[in-house]
């Protein structure tokens, strides 16, 4: 992931200062308070910062952010399901096959292992949230916090005692991913009917409409302005 960061646009503009003292300072702030509960961190200079903490330090991380680092603004809380879709990669696969055919190769088999993103991970579900320090015209930053959710219990501490606004976000995460937030005042359905079964945003929950009828028009898209000439011929093929 660090390699990606250097290719990012803003990072290029910021190349004179590849280190980001502000964001390094945030990471330091978390490390200072949480010690070895901080599992991994990632700083994209000038862009963003990620901090992954242990699941048991999830609420403590929120307290540190809110009370010690002054990140009083709660942006969102949600969950990542890293399971590769058991239904294949639908139209991705179709395009891969098409591209491979043009290149005269075999299409790569769909991934079956968990491929975690920034700051890595070890479990299927990761809870992640974003908080920010706002209200000071020249002192704005936000941080994305992540934690691995144990696969066996699927529970994690609730943030509601720290950020009251996490209430609805945790209800959504509970209903969409089936994670339980310990200490939440009332986990109940927010979007779905109360007799709904399943957790729709999990990767193994089929989007039936798409299983029945594939989304059309992925290979023969209309030409876009600015697309290169050398690719025009390919599009016609």
């Amino acid at each position, binding site marked *: 992931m660090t390699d990606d960061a250097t290719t990012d646009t803003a990072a290029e503009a910021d190349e004179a200062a590849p280190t980001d003292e502000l964001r390094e300072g945030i990471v330091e702030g978390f490390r200072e308070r949480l010690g070895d509960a901080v599992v991994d961190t990632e700083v994209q200079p000038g862009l963003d910062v990620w901090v992954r903490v242990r699941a048991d330090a999830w609420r403590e991380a929120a307290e540190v952010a809110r009370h010690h680092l002054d990140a009083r603004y709660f942006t969102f809380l949600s969950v990542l399901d890293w399971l590769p879709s058991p239904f294949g990669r639908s139209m991705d696969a179709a395009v891969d096959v098409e591209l491979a055919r043009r290149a005269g190769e075999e299409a790569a088999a769909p991934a079956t292992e968990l491929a975690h993103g920034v700051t890595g991970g070890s479990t299927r579900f990761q809870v992640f949230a974003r908080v920010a320090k706002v209200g000071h015209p020249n002192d704005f930053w936000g941080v994305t916090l992540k934690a691995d959710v144990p696969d066996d219990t699927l529970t994690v501490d609730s943030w509601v005692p720290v950020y*009251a606004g996490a209430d609805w976000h945790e209800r959504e995460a509970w209903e969409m991913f089936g994670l339980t937030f310990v200490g939440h005042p009332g986990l109940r359905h927010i979007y779905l009917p109360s007799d709904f079964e399943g957790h729709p945003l999990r990767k193994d929950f089929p*989007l039936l409409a798409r299983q029945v009828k594939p989304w059309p028009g992925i290979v023969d898209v209309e030409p876009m302005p600015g697309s290169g000439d050398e690719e025009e011929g390919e599009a016609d093929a």
Partner: protein
Amino acid sequence: MTAVTDRQKLQYIAARAADARVNVELETEGMTLNIGPQHPATHGTLRIVAQLDGEQVIAAEPVAGYMHRGYEKLTEVRTYAQVTTLVNRIDWLGSFANEVPFILAAEQLMGIEAPPRATWIRTIFFEMSRIANLILFLGDMGVQLGAITPVFFAFRDREFVLNQIERVTGGRFHPNFDRIGGLKDDLPKGWIEDNKRTMEKVRSFCDEIEDLLMGSEIFQERTRGIGVIPPDVALQYGLSGANARSSGIDWDLRRDNCIGLAYPELDWKVWTHPDGDSFARFWVRLQEVREATRIIDQLCDGIPSGPIMAKVPRIIKVPAGEAWISTENPLGEMGYYVVSQGDLTPFRVKIRSASFNNVSITPWILRGVYVPDIITILASLYFILGDIDR
């Protein structure tokens, strides 16, 4: 943190005291009132279950989800270019503004930067959608408070803005105009001159609203001190945009964290109001519409020439990575957390919409208010159902 004003303190204390009175003094059999899902004050299908004691609210619970369309799931089976069509429908009054953060996130992951002209035109339409959205708020606030004339003025003058958007994008409500790496089209000839006149009309609409509605004593009586949100509570609940600024929080993503838009090169001002009540929210939004017209005028004057599309691959495959981009949308902070695994489709898109957080404060803020104030507060918090339910 901005200091809490005396007014806010007093109103907060008064609200808590009213709470206590409801619980102790007036112990009567309550009544459950279902406001919505079909109700004129809910802009769609939000339902608010209010426990009433007489006309006073003991507890209120918003019930969302009547319009949930599952965009986060749908994005996982659409290419990046197709997602903009979906997200147009999130805040349907300021559609273009929904596309921008997603496109910016995709561009950040791909390492593409839109050419300056595209950036400036994006900023123009970003602000145009702000005007198209907030004008309706300014009129609708009147309707919710019983003055039906302002909303007709709002629709009349919003039409000029929509026409300008339509001339360029071909769509009045859902332009779907933003592309990874730039824009679909350039501005047509003569558009900029017409736009100046449109902005003039919008400004005169603002003056009209200020005279007709905001200056009315009844309006002030109905909104001042109603639904006071202290800054700290606003931040805890993740209130953003004008709702946060009217609680005295000096925070605007256009100024503080402007990625991929032309705001740093312009001369403009972030409006805040210390009171945090419904009037403040109306006032801040009115000033924001005015400020938006000034921003657009500057953008039209200084728009650079050049291409409107960067070099992008024929088939867009976004490199693996994660990006969070949020922008200052008409309703507040709208952001996309895009996770890519190097495919044509995003692996996961977390859509952070402003209204979801803005409305989640309602159980807190509606306690102890009167039924007519529910309407005032909901109208002044200003939500779009599509933005809550996604």
